[in-house]
């Protein structure tokens, strides 16, 4: 426990290049996750995000085994997953079970590939739970490029996408191409997930993509304020998680998930006390 609060150690590590790179990466990811999260929550796509991140793991594991770039493999895996899941209708009663079928098979294949991989064990573990080493400024340039691309698309489709997410029936009646938007959004989520896998690991991507938005939805109903709060919560979780993980050298995801969970609990308590005072 002393190791976690070893501020001298943390301070020294904060001057190291790869740590700075990891924090910049986390800040960019937090922004992306905070903006996409409220849409994921209102579209009931939480399980789909989990499925996408598991298939990012499969892609990453395949890349590791074949000696390719892990980030590229994760991106390929999650975009394939996003397209498959995006083509499914949310209305289908078997939506969740198809996700379950696809993700468990993909995870199984990923486990097989990790077992076949004879390289460094920390590479395997890093795919599952995230790691901060290995972020350099070149990979951050790629990250920023992807995020700018996602935001550029989002700037064009945000309004109809929000309409289709919160009020699909009337959106369709008003001529919003809800199916095409579902596909585009699924690909965006796939990109965001693949980018998050490297830092936070495929098992716990939900802590960054979903928990901050779910917490924000507890305390406000305004879509703008939900997005701003989700970004804030995601930034605190992502950057705070990295900083806390430095001194003990523990996996980042343990701290990111803990911080975002605590934020959620606080927001839940706030919404509960408000409802009690109103009643």
């Amino acid at each position: 426990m002393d190791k976690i609060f070893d501020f001298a150690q943390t301070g020294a590590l904060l001057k190291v290049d790869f740590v700075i790179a990891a924090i910049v990466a986390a800040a960019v990811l937090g922004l992306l996750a905070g903006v996409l999260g409220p849409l994921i929550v209102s579209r009931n796509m939480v399980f789909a995000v989990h499925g996408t991140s598991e298939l990012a793991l499969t892609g990453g594991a395949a890349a590791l085994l074949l000696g390719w770039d892990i980030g590229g493999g994760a991106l390929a895996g999650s975009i394939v997953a996003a397209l498959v899941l995006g083509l499914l209708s949310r209305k289908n009663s078997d939506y969740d079970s198809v996700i379950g079928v696809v993700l468990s098979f993909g995870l199984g294949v990923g486990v097989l590939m990790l077992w076949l991989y004879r390289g460094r064990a920390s590479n395997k573990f890093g795919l599952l739970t995230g790691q901060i080493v290995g972020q350099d400024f070149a990979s951050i340039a790629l990250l920023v490029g992807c995020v700018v691309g996602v935001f550029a698309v989002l700037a064009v489709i945000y309004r109809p996408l929000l309409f289709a997410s919160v009020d699909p029936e009337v959106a369709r009646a008003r001529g919003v191409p809800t199916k095409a938007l579902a596909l585009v959004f699924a690909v965006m989520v796939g990109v965001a997930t693949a980018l998050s896998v490297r830092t936070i690991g495929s098992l716990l991507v939900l802590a960054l993509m979903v928990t901050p938005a779910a917490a924000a939805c507890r305390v406000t109903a305004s879509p703008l304020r939900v997005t701003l709060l989700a970004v804030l919560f995601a930034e605190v979780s992502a950057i705070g998680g990295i900083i806390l993980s430095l001194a003990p050298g523990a996996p980042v995801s343990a701290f990111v998930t803990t911080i975002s969970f605590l934020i959620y609990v606080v927001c839940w308590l706030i919404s509960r006390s408000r409802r009690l005072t109103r009643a």
Partner: protein
Amino acid sequence: MTIDPGSRTVAASTSDAVTLRGARLSYGDRVLWDGLDLDIRPGEFIAVLGPNGSGKTSLLRVLLGLQQLSAGTVSVAGVAPGKGNSHIGYIPQQRALEPTLALRGRDLVGLGFDGHRWGLGIADRRARAARVDEVLADVGATGFADRSVGLLSGGEQQRLRVAQALVNDPRVLLCDEPLLSLDLANQAAVSSLIDARRRAANTAVLFVTHEINPILPLVDRILYLVDGRFRVGTPEEVMTSATLTALYGTTVEVVRVRGQIHVIGAHSDLCEDAPHHHGEH
């Protein structure tokens, strides 16, 4: 009920709010309706009645441009239905919105104003906010417009749906069972909002419903669809034992009690099956 091939070319040039000529809708060999000629004038209130599966909602889908006619022509507000005709307002059935949905009443109405447009719309936000405030006041929803829509009652949600449909000043209002699952007081409130709009702005109303009684005083004409057959006329013409017996092809009795109409059929599924009045949650 006959199809006149010559009428197809003139369909789009009338001043009617909705024009259907020789319209046919079929799925495979199942014909929902055929040879449907209907002109809805601006300001007219038309109720669409019929049992489940008679194609009432499909008719709305055709007018919204979500469904192609199998034959015939259709125009709405002077043009062929395309996706996103801004002269059409649409009110769906009341369905409980999730309590955790991050959306306020004013956001729901705002999406009706410009949610279908690309871009972020930051430049138009003042005009949008002003118009949304105006229409919220019109339907008496100002008091709860800033609360989460999922926490509102069914009646409050349907008022917001009316505001959402009216925010663009539509020339045609399409309503898909908007009173379903509302209590009687809210049925009256919501239908009188719709009636006030068509009188004030000459908006044509096409109102799909299981139940004629809550809107009977407002209705100009009825389109009654049964199993591929249909009848158009005033309530006095259509809601008679003779007309409905002919439509259903079996003995149906229409009884008027204290200004209300009750349809009594040989089988319960023939008459207006009435899953309404579940009350509000």
